[in-house]
């Protein structure tokens, strides 16, 4: 018998299962057992990173031109990165739905959509609040802003689609196709500032020749980016767990109704 890497105690909500290889996590019951163990740690580390990130965000120097408005960057940029990363996670899950027809992949992209919408909303609102004092306008229909707004609408559309279809596996397949078609928008968002003449500035952190911003701003930005990313994964894992429970409740209620029907 192969040795178990992780062995969990039996719990009525999670049950007991040994995880001996990575593919075992694809089993929803084993996934639930893992979430029970890792979620408190993920939440704790996220909170700690936010404390450090917020401290750095308000104690480092302001920019010589932008002044203190540069502090908006420490929430705007991580949210914008996450809006694209969340969609990429959904696209990978969509492949899992269409190629392997795996229920956990269905659960993953369904649970991620509201999170992606929230982070995109943060990016749009904080960008607007940064644009007004620096550009002199709340909004322009340039390629970067418009493509991010389209991403926000796509998230809302996917949430609506998932809620409109009763059959979860059918909803997952239709959503997966739409997610993969919509993925074309991600490189458009990333390279919009290079391909078109935009009011939004080009990339200054993720570039082939290295970051072009001063370390004074880079450190709080990176700590906040890691905090936001960990927050996303914590919420995603928790939302996936909730969705698995929701499906179990539905299945068990259906089973109870069938049993009641037989008794009559």
């Amino acid at each position: 018998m192969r040795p178990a890497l992780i062995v969990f105690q039996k719990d009525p909500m999670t049950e007991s299962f040994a995880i001996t290889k990575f593919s075992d996590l694809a089993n929803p019951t084993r996934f639930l057992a893992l979430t029970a163990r890792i979620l408190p740690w993920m939440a704790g580390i996220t909170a700690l990173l936010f404390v450090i990130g917020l401290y750095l965000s308000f104690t480092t120097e302001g920019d010589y031109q932008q002044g203190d408005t540069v502090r908006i960057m420490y929430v705007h940029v991580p949210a914008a990165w996450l809006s694209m990363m969340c969609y990429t996670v959904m696209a990978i899950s969509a492949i899992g739905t269409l190629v392997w027809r795996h229920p956990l992949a269905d659960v993953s992209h369904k649970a991620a959509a509201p999170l992606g919408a929230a982070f995109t909303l943060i990016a749009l609102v904080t960008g607007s609040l940064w644009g007004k004092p620096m550009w002199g306008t709340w909004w322009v229909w340039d390629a970067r802003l418009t493509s991010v707004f389209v991403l926000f609408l796509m998230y809302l559309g996917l949430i609506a689609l998932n809620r409109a279809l009763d059959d979860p596996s059918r909803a997952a397949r239709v959503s997966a196709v739409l997610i993969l078609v919509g993925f074309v928008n991600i490189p458009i968002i990333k390279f919009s500032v290079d391909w078109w003449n935009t009011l939004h500035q080009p990339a200054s952190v993720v570039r082939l020749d290295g970051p072009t911003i001063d370390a004074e701003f880079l450190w709080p930005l990176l700590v906040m980016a890691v905090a936001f990313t960990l927050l996303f994964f914590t919420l995603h894992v928790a939302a996936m767990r909730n969705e698995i429970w929701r499906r179990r409740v539905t299945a068990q209620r259906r089973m109870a109704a069938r049993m009641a029907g037989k008794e009559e």
Partner: protein
Amino acid sequence: MSHTFYIAMSYGLTALVILSLIGWVMLDGRARRRELAELETSGIRRRSATHSAGETR
């Protein structure tokens, strides 16, 4: 601090959205956990749970 309104609004709205997300995920989880516990107490279990001797699947 210059432009306090814009900075405070940015951080305030970000906090509002993130706290709403955390609250929603936590409340949703609590409600599902309660529903599963109610089903358990009324004797309705998953087919695999009723068949298994505890450790299989």
